[in-house]
């Protein structure tokens, strides 16, 4: 027991040190790198929210970008169209995303596996088409730009801090959820829905709740993008982005808690730096995905995790 709490303490120290480092970075980094880090956190949170239902829930959430986009648009419209306080907008975005997730979830959850994913893509595309076509409300394919932020978080430094704090808080809550009875049961459903139902779990309701939570956190990620970029555009809820966030989860490791954040970091870094050399970024992304599926089916972090536990020589499940 004491060994365990000691490693636990070590983990907390590492997390605290990393957090302190993140808070100090704005004093040394250039503006571009702050933006880059912010983008990594926004996408990391976005990918984590997907992994809540994908990796932990085993649900084929193929169009997760809808909730990210709805969260972002909800906030943007509250501020730019309705002239409300941004803080209120920040609250409305995720709640709207969760509501859309609940509505779509109720329709899709009756279908299983691939059929769920396919129906979700079509319903999600409907949301995208609405945003794309409704020029005088959503700005159509121009999107909305120059959304004004509260002065506290309007500067690059301010927005960076806000994003780091919010991402940290959301990751913390998601960690609690994954480790809660709700999370345990969700993982049970992923592994064996029939058995879960047979031990008294209302499988569909449990999954629907997971979808709503995932939608909410995707909405928060959307809000943070607005804070970072002060703009929204319809690509934020286009299906290609859903594919990209799926790749982030697979790349980082969808059976590890922080894998999706790592996947997001790798993908955003490659995209940012590779696309300065070539315009064929999508091609490179495709090749990366193929290599990961063939050589690292558990993702980068999953692979490191396995190597580490082999190194420690433990085959017991409780030691994770």
């Amino acid at each position, binding site marked *: 027991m004491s060994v365990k709490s000691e490693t636990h303490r070590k983990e907390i120290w590492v997390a605290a040190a990393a957090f302190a480092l993140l808070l100090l970075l704005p004093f040394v980094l250039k503006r571009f790198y702050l933006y880059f880090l912010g983008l990594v956190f926004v996408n990391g949170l976005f990918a984590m929210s997907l992994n809540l239902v994908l990796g932990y829930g085993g649900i084929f959430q193929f169009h997760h970008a809808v909730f990210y986009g709805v969260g972002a648009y909800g906030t943007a419209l509250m501020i730019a169209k309705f002239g409300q306080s941004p803080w209120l907008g920040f609250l409305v975005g995720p709640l709207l995303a969760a509501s859309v997730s609940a509505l779509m979830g109720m329709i899709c959850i009756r279908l299983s596996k691939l059929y769920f994913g396919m129906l979700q893509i079509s319903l999600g595309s409907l949301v995208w088409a609405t945003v794309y076509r409704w020029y005088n409300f959503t700005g159509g394919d121009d999107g909305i730009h120059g959304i004004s932020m509260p002065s506290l978080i309007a500067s690059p430094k301010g927005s960076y801090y806000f994003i780091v704090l919010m991402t940290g808080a959301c990751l913390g809550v998601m960690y*609690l*959820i994954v*480790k*809660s*009875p*709700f*999370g*345990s*049961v969700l*993982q*049970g459903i992923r*592994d*064996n829905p*029939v*058995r*879960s*139902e*047979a*031990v*008294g*779990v*209302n*499988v569909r309701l*449990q999954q629907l*709740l997971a979808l709503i*939570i995932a939608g909410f956190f995707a909405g928060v990620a959307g809000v943070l993008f607005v804070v970072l970029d002060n703009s929204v555009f319809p690509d934020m809820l286009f299906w290609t982005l859903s594919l990209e966030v799926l790749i982030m989860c697979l790349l980082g490791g969808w059976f590890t808690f922080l894998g999706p954040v790592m996947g997001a970091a790798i993908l955003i870094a490659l995209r940012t730096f590779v696309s300065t050399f070539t315009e064929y970024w999508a091609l490179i992304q495709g090749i990366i995905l193929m290599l990961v599926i063939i050589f690292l089916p558990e993702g980068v972090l999953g692979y490191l995790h396995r190597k580490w536990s082999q190194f420690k020589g433990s*085959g*017991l*499940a*409780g*030691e994770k």
Partner: protein
Amino acid sequence: MLQVEEIKKSFGGFQAVDGANLDVKKSEIVAVIGPNGAGKTTLFNLITGILKPDGGRVVFKGEEITGWPAYRICKKGVSRSFQVVNIFPRLAVFENVQISVLSQQRKTYDLLSPSKTLVIQETQNILESVRLTDKARHVSGSLSHGDQKVLEIAIALGSKPELLILDEPTAGMSPEETSRCIDLIRHLSTDFGLTILFCEHDMELVFAIAHRIMVMVHGRSIIQALPEEVRCNREVQDAYLGESEVQDA
């Protein structure tokens, strides 16, 4: 405690269960026997809500539960194990049972308390009673087949059932594992006062522990009676005991 009346189920054109009747009294051990394909597993699936019947009634503790979803029937006090091992293979043995206990205690919507501090004692007690305590931390998918079958029962116990349904509990077990399993079933019946309904191909086991036996042939129940009566019944001998040797060969 449980009455099944004229229950029916067909798959496509095949009548898997064609008017089966069953009666289980409190604290009784009832066995369902019958040749392969007689509809025993389908009958259990109909009772526990995994399948919806086409006709007939299932009554549990005086309430009709026909066609209820499986999770509701479980909450009502009917819990089961599966013929083909049906566990959470990626999770540890402890977690397998814990999920069941969490569900029984209606904690599945608890979002923020850590699972690892909850229902520890209850879970340990169950593992203790089936003697899996020393394997609690093992990934359940890596256990031997016999241990996985015992874990099946342990998961079912997590739901604190009044009626425990076991679908071929000893299928694929070695002779030692089988005798351990027989002891376990007896222990659950006498010490926990559980009502047990099970089906089994091992006749020795059936006649050793069942208080009453129901015989199923071609989806129909032909008799439910005391073991001696079933053994002497002509119809059973013709339809089942003679035939099964041919089928088993």
